[in-house]
């Protein structure tokens, strides 16, 4: 009985009580897959931060003497067509990919969340307007939307982040709006309004905390998606431009040498898979652990 009243009390505050949070954290820790994912991401972060230490020198400096070499002690993953160490470029590439991932979800979070909250909470004309725009954007498959934006904005790292970021915004808007819609119907929100609480306070204190869960899951998965999309654009030649060592861009140049030097294309791809895998595993684990249906 105490359990249920505690939970009800927590819902009246819109925040997870400490004990519940601890239980969900324990559940997350138990999930070995999620843990593995988290470790992968951590490894990439460390690699990105320590890049100059792990690989001194410029990763983009050509060295034509050593073009297209297989694995060796000096270059464990071989070299590409311009003689650059693939390992080194992958290490520096992790910086690019993480930068893109963070940049893209920032768009979603900074633009999508507030719009979603406003749309879901206030309803009416504002909601209608935002929804129509969101619907239009979501009428395109994500990658295609990013593609179209790149066609307009141009290529390069900055535009890659902006294009993918913008295409991620409607996803966040939908997500947050849905949550906001259901929470605003809760009795404690009504009570807060009746007492005269200002809207912004209600939004921040009651609605936002409850939206955190799906946002967190979406952010982890979104980062993985961002890396995939960016790699796709890079591969097509309209994303990050060479010589910047973005993994997808590396793959596009590696494509020409597929027949006798497949390692140029193989290893950056593996890096992409591992990074995205990490975010996906973590996102899955978060979803399992934080899903309110699975009440422990």
């Amino acid at each position, binding site marked *: 009985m105490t359990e249920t009243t505690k939970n009800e009390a927590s819902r009246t505050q819109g925040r997870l009580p400490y004990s519940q949070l601890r239980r969900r954290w324990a559940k997350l820790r138990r999930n070995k897959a999620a843990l593995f994912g988290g470790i992968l991401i951590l490894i990439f972060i460390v690699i990105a931060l320590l890049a100059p230490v792990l690989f001194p020198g410029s990763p983009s400096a050509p060295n034509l003497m050593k073009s297209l070499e297989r694995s060796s002690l000096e270059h464990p993953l071989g070299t590409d067509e311009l003689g650059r160490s693939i390992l080194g470029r992958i290490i520096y590439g992790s910086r690019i990919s993480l930068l893109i991932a963070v940049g893209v979800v920032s768009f979603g979070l900074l633009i999508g969340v507030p719009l979603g909250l406003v749309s879901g909470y206030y309803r009416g004309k504002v909601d209608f307007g935002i929804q129509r725009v969101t619907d239009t954007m979501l009428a395109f*498959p994500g990658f295609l939307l990013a*593609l179209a934006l790149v066609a307009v904005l141009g290529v390069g790292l900055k535009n890659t982040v902006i294009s993918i970021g913008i295409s991620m915004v409607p996803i966040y808007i939908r997500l947050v709006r849905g949550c906001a819609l259901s929470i605003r119907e809760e009795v404690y929100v009504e009570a807060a309004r009746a007492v005269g609480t200002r809207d912004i306070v209600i939004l921040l204190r009651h609605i936002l905390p409850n939206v955190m869960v799906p946002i967190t899951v979406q952010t982890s998965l979104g980062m993985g998606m961002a890396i*995939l999309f960016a790699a*796709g654009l890079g591969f*097509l030649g309209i994303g990050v431009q060479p010589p910047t060592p973005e993994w997808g861009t590396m*793959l596009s140049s590696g494509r020409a040498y597929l027949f006798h030097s497949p390692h140029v*294309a193989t290893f950056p791809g593996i890096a992409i898979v591992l990074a995205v895998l990490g975010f996906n595993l973590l996102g899955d684990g978060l979803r399992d652990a934080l899903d309110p249906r699975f009440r422990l």
Partner: protein
Amino acid sequence: MLQYVIKRLLSTIPVLIGISLLLFFMLRMLPGDPAQVLAGQMATPDEVELIRHQLGLDRPVHVQYAFFLGRLARFDLGRSARTQNPVTEEIWARLPNTMLLAVVAITLACLFGIPAGIISAVRPYTWIDYVVTSTAIFGISMPVFWLGLMLVVVFAVWLQWLPAGGTGSWRHVILPSFTLAAFVVAFIARMTRSSMIEVLSQDYTTTARSKGLKEQVVVIKHALKNALIPIITVIGLQFGMLLGGAVLTETVFAWPGVGRLIVDSILARDYPMIQGAILVFGLLYILVNLVVDLLYAYVDPRIRYD
């Protein structure tokens, strides 16, 4: 159900308007003179002026938009700045190729993904479940173009069983469609698994068992029918992923579809073509989602009989 159908059809209208606006303004957001842009880099100043007049680019914006809508209604998407052929023609020539890949991919995805998901759900946490779920999560983490390249390395370079690209025979279809299918198979397997697990934990599954029905019957007749409903709705979304993936896959395999057309057009700054191709893909996506939503209404008796 009628209410649902009408609502759904009506909701398509603002989206169509929105897309047309988006594409209309897309062109005008580009730096420089739209007429020049549309005429292409090779055009002479006279040709540019001709285009400007023809497309009414010297008129006010809302008039231009009206012209634009008018042309859309007549399926006139302009001419390619690269080849000077009508955009509609170029797209129409390539669309069947893309659709071929997409249809094969979706079929494979359902053929393999759904049974895998079912088996996984019925025997959770066994070795077979781990195999399915780990493969699936790798599947959705893989860039489709990398998978394509790897498959080429293995099957075209090392084993030399299949061609590395182009069209011609059924052999040419295998690698591109399998590549395209990979992500979707994985996604559908995961979705089927979670949907089935959810359904198998429902009260009505216990009721079915309490009547003494064989487990097989419970899974297929009682559970699967319910589990497929949310999966159907997701297939529309998956089609979108396929269209996006097609762009990449067709590039890898030099497949003459609309996807590759988009890429080539972007690289060549052939804006009428970009606009046209993206429009077509967008419309296709909307159409498929519409069909899927209507199908879903038909399949779920709670909506059908209301």
